[in-house]
């Protein structure tokens, strides 16, 4: 399953400036683990020690917050778009 991962500008130093990465997997966790193989610093930065997403980062699959689905176990399908977005915005 090939999925596009959008990287916010605050993290692009860790992806050689790339704003999009290609990930593979059946869940968000698998996709992030996959992109983390080539970008280990990225994975370390977006997750806490227990492997969960950091408090001030939100992850969306096709625009839906994964906290409304199954968090990191949210399934993804071919062509889906996973976005990593800092939560500090708005209001």
């Amino acid at each position, binding site marked *: 399953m090939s999925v596009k991962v959008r990287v916010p500008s605050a993290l692009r130093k860790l992806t050689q400036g790339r704003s999009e990465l290609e990930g593979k997997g059946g869940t968000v966790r698998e996709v992030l683990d996959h992109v983390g193989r080539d970008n280990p610093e990225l994975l370390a930065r977006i997750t806490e020690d227990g492997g969960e997403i950091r408090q*001030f980062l939100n992850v969306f699959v096709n*625009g839906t917050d994964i906290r409304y689905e199954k968090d990191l176990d949210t399934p993804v399908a071919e062509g889906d778009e996973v976005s990593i977005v800092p939560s*500090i*915005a708005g*209001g």
Partner: protein
Amino acid sequence: MTEIQTKPATPDSLDTLRCRLCGEVTDAGPYHVCEHCFGPLEVGYDLESLRGTLTRELIRSRPTNLWRYRELLPIGTDPVGGHAVGWTPLLPAPRLGEALGIEDLWIKADSSNHPTQSFKDRVVAIALQRAHEFGIKVVGCASTGNLANSVAAQAAAAGLEAWIFIPEDLEPEKVTATGVHGARLVRIRGVYDDVNRLCAEVSDRFGWGIVNVNLRPYYAEGSKTVGFEIVEQLDWSLPANVVAPMAGGSLITKLGKSFREFGEVGLIDDGPKPRLFGTQAAGCAPIINALHEGESRVRPVREPKTIARSLAIGNPADGPFALQAMLDSGGWGEAVSDDEIVEGIRLLASLEGVFTETAGGVVVAGAARLAREGRFASDGPTVLCITGNGLKTPDAARSTFELGEPIEPRLSEVERLAEGM
């Protein structure tokens, strides 16, 4: 793409951006998120250098707008706009106070702010000044309405292009009061949090100055001027209690910061600070839910359902900090139903002559609950922050009175009505 200058000239007091979570320091550029932990970046000031130089006399000598506190605001050059923003009335509210059982009650009436009758005029004035300093030509926002009005109006006055992103179901009055200024109005199929997420990505992609995304550290500081003004208008004394509405949670957090900074620079005694009380609509109360359940993490509300659309942010960015502000100050918070909101609007209008939008109804109704619970300290004034004007949400108030049948233009008709009274 707009070319952004990342290092405008800065005054001595505007120093750096500092992460509220990990303390990491960065230069004061157009960014809002810590690259290390994704915490919010906040403006740092050299407050020590202002002790003795930023005096009450100096502030009093300046025009009555928000720039009178400029040393405590994140601007690098003389303000180019916003010269009528702020210095809204602080009104004694004895009749409302009697009805709610609150002694020494006051209304901070940002419902009459210029140019768009809400407290958002303050934060936008700062953000657009900073946009000017960064050389940004296109600004924008994600908005539940009041911010849309203010960005559109102030961008028009500054000659900036504005892109305004709103949920598609916004009140028609707020849509009109935005579009009339010539802004590019983009309606999004979704709730505010969808709009907000999109704007975070837009800011990344286009390099525009989205006031509540990449200009947010500066924008948010504008909320402090509500607190500064309250203190100055109370003749340089602190209120005992302040009640604020909460959407993203920024205002209540910055109220706390304003009182601390006035103490730290010596404008007031650096003693106990006001209790901070937050209010939300029950149909979208993620911060109050966390408060009442004793949680430190704020669980988002996916589908807000309330007439208080200006507060309908299900995923509040400053939620954890708003919680902390209430608890650290000895305050509390309450959520109120739509019926209570309408009654709050009616009470404020019929007892004090101030017509507020739904967010103000939330504050009045929330204050009524907090008073019944005995939450307020009784050793000083209580201030309700009324953040928006009732003409923005007139439908919400329509049920508060009966409109009789029209009569013929004859005195006898009026006599008939008067007899019935």
